[in-house]
């Protein structure tokens, strides 16, 4: 009996892992270097007894238009992988925070030219490290940037403008 239960548990675990592998290949449409799993958007993967698959996601910013695109991308990826009955649900609580972005995600952001969220600069303030030349001699231009999640900075040393992913 024990072995049967274990096998079931293993299967369940493996199936989840299969789904996760698919989700790990979906990129955030507005920050195309980060996957949705690195962003911390995926909260749960659930198999239901009616053979449907439920993906629970959490929104980053309330009005973020990327969420609709992400929902569509998840459905598309899972259906082409053979999951016919896919349901995507939103979970608001607990509210998403930038702490859910993985460490590798933060490094990728930096390499892409976006300063990663840093609790020392919440609210955004002068001094966020420039992702290009690593100078801390930087100036906040605007708390609102090209998308809801970013603030606009300028580096006073290399003179380049850059985005800072705000703590949220």
């Amino acid at each position, binding site marked *: 009996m024990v072995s049967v239960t274990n096998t079931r548990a293993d299967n369940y675990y493996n199936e989840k892992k299969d789904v996760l592998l698919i989700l790990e290949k979906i990129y955030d449409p507005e920050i195309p270097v980060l996957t949705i799993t690195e962003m911390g958007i995926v909260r749960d993967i659930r198999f239901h007894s009616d053979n449907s698959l439920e993906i629970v996601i959490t*929104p980053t*910013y*309330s*009005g*973020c*238009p990327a969420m609709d695109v992400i929902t569509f991308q998840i459905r598309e990826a899972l259906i082409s992988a053979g999951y016919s009955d896919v349901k995507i649900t939103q979970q*608001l*609580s*607990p*509210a*998403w925070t930038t702490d859910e972005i993985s460490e590798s995600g933060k490094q990728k952001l930096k390499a892409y030219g976006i300063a990663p969220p840093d609790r020392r600069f919440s*609210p955004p303030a002068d001094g966020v490290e420039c992702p290009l030349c690593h100078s801390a001699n930087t100036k906040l*231009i*605007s*708390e*609102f*940037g*090209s998308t*809801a999640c970013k603030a*606009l900075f300028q580096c006073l040393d290399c003179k380049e403008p850059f985005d800072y992913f705000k703590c*949220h």
Partner: protein
Amino acid sequence: MNDYLLHLADTSLILSHRNSEWCGHGPVLEQDIAITNIALDLLGQARYFYQYAARLTGNTDEDKLAFLRHEREFKNLLITELPKGDWAHTVLRQYLFSQFQFFQFEKLQHHSDKELAAIAAKSLKETAYHLRWSREWVIRLGDGTEESHRRMLAALDTLWPYTHEMFRPADYELACEVNVAELEQPWKEAMAYVFQEANLPIPQHTWFQYGGKTGYHTEYLGYILAEMQYMQRAYPGATW
């Protein structure tokens, strides 16, 4: 509960619409982006509330609630439907409202209805940004040049009579055990501090306008709805 959710949704939607009118017209690019980001956050809030209301009542959805209800069915605060006016009007309205909304969501995040509490907790984080941004603008313009100060006084004169509606509870708020009246004191204290920094007087009028919460609107709402609802009414069920 349904009426209360619609009140919250309508308020966010209409203010979002007003702020979005600045898109492409902001005084400088960064501020154009800021006000449209705020519009987007408010639209996101409105969607949460409409979606929840639709789930509770069934047989409807967020789009029907936003696009197919009549003026008298809208329950938004009157202050949100007033024209965007000049930049002084826009930032002052945003401040007066965000200061209220901040306290409102702070309370609501502990509401016994878990879904409502979750929406409030989520939205509160964004409202904190709106509040900080608009507060800075009120101080900058109030304590700025003679011209900017004059415009802030004019904006204050227009908007002030619409502020007290926020704190006078509608029946549906009381039914949901939401006491907006108790937010008035903290709101006044916070505002007094900002107005002192901004070198603005606290108006002493005692006459206030009410009605939005129960569907009695200014002449402005009809025009907003005409613009917003035109597509769905002319081409029912049209989608992208």
